[in-house]
């Protein structure tokens, strides 16, 4: 058989390697279902914490020359309320990954437990939101804190744990190894890159939070490098994320070492058909190159 695009990550079976990235449209059961209908291999919810958050004031999301800059501020209704959305997804045809954040290892674990109880197939730990005090990247920059969070969540839930890492560190291998050695089942790399835009007419930062995270085309080469480095450092699967807009981008991340890819900002340009287009593009590529499956090309660039 040639051109098999089904992939497995931890114990999740994906019909294709495209996953909706966290923070993109994953706010409601209805819309996550819509993404599944559009052809995604799996979906990740918007990050949810223990307590509700309103998020920051607008502007929260703006387009810059080479990508999208955002500081939305993790708005979410809190896991108790969000559990209802998760419960509505029991008949979802694809795996549901719930993204969680917390302000301590214990909080991450509490949220993860409630998410799993509501029906999450896997938990993605947001260890990488670049613009929130006391959580996200502030935890995810420290190998020690990452270890504590992953261990605590791992001992609390019996579903696969994905650690989503920030590129805003000196050495991403170091934090990837911390996550892997503490029991993470996979690594998602990367979250957005800390960035900023200043309007020159009004002479002020545009985002209300001033600093945000950059996504989209500009960060793809950074994602490719991070995935490549992480692949050499750990033995667990990697989910590549950052600037994937076409099947070529997806294949590039897979060759660097990703077993699947997440898609986010590209939806702003390509709409929901992007999932099917990328999945079919990967299939055609595998055929053309004579590869049997996605698995055969994961990390292939390392053999060069």
């Amino acid at each position, binding site marked *: 058989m040639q051109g098999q695009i089904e992939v497995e990550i931890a114990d999740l079976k994906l019909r294709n390697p495209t996953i909706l990235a966290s*923070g*993109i*449209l*994953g*706010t*409601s059961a*209805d*819309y996550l*279902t*819509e993404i599944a209908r559009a052809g995604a291999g799996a979906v990740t919810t*918007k990050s949810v914490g223990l307590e*509700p*958050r*309103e*998020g920051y*004031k*607008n*502007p*929260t*999301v*703006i*387009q810059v020359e080479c990508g*999208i800059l*955002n500081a*939305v501020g993790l*708005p*979410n*209704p*809190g896991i108790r*309320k*969000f559990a209802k959305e998760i419960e509505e997804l029991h008949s979802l045809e694809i795996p549901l990954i719930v993204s969680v954040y917390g302000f301590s290892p214990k909080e991450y674990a509490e949220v993860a437990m409630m998410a799993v109880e509501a029906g999450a197939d896997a938990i993605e730990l947001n260890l990488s939101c670049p613009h929130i005090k006391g959580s996200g990247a502030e935890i995810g920059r420290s190998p020690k804190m990452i270890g504590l969070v992953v261990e605590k969540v791992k001992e609390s839930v019996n579903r696969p744990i994905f650690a989503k890492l920030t590129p805003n560190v000196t050495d991403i291998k170091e934090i990837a190894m911390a996550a892997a050695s503490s029991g993470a089942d996979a690594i998602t790399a990367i979250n957005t890159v800390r960035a900023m835009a200043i*309007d020159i*007419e*009004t002479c*002020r930062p*545009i985002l*209300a939070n001033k600093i945000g995270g950059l996504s989209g085309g500009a960060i793809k080469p950074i994602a490719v490098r991070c995935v490549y480095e992480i692949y050499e450092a750990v033995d667990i699967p990697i989910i590549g994320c950052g600037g994937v807009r076409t099947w070529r981008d997806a294949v590039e991340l897979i060759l660097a070492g990703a077993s699947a890819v997440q898609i*986010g*900002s590209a*939806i*702003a*340009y390509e*709409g929901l058909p992007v999932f099917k287009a990328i999945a079919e593009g990967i299939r055609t590529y595998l055929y053309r190159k004579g590869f049997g499956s996605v698995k055969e090309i994961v990390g292939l660039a390392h053999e060069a």
Partner: protein
Amino acid sequence: MKHNEMRIVKIRKVKMETRNVKTIFFEDKLSASAEPGQFLMVWIPGVDEIPLSISSASGRLASVTVKEIGEATRALNKMKKGENLGIRGPFGSHFRVVGKNALVVGGGIGTAPLFMLVTKLLNNGVKTTIIEGAKTRSEILFHDQLLALHDKRGLKVMFTTEDGSYGTKGVVTEAAEKCLSEEKFDSMYVCGKEAMIRELYFLAEKHGIQMQASLERIIRCAMGICGSCVIGRYRVCKDGPVFDSSQLREISIELGKFQRNFRGERIPIEN
């Protein structure tokens, strides 16, 4: 995707419409090429960025018509000619001309995008009736402009006020129901409070006429990615804000009943 980029524009003119409603004109080619029903993200530097319907677009000038409701709209209506605003857009779907006899219904500030629409309908040879509802006489929007279109172009204009200080006493939905029972319309265009839209949706369904309604939700990105404005399987910023009957049917359970707050939590719409 030029329209997504933040452009800084200078306010060219501010027109007082009512005690707490102003129309703010600025020069922006993209906004001036907008279709009726589309919206802009308007950045009041240092305050907030909010979605607003475009109320006029001609030549190089476009405008938004703003009612003071919260911090952002108050700050916006304090701004003067020559001051800077940030603009993104135009975004979203727009009202489409269908049929030959249109009923246009606006409630309060919901009338903002409808003057552009009635002009377009008349330009397309559609027989058009507009009903505008307001709480009281002093809150009626675009009164003189609408009457001018009546005189020059044959637009049928009706006003309702809740206190009876002008036009027919009552609410627009009652006036719309009366119109629909007396005359054969083939399309209805609506903007206003969602509870009103819900009532008019059921009226349109009952009379078997096509409806297009503009909905409002919390909007952050306006690019269809953040998920703040989802209703059913639609994004108000991208698939809307103007929805037609077949789309409204799919969301009729939520329509006028539920919305999502800044936390993304589904909450009842207060009327």
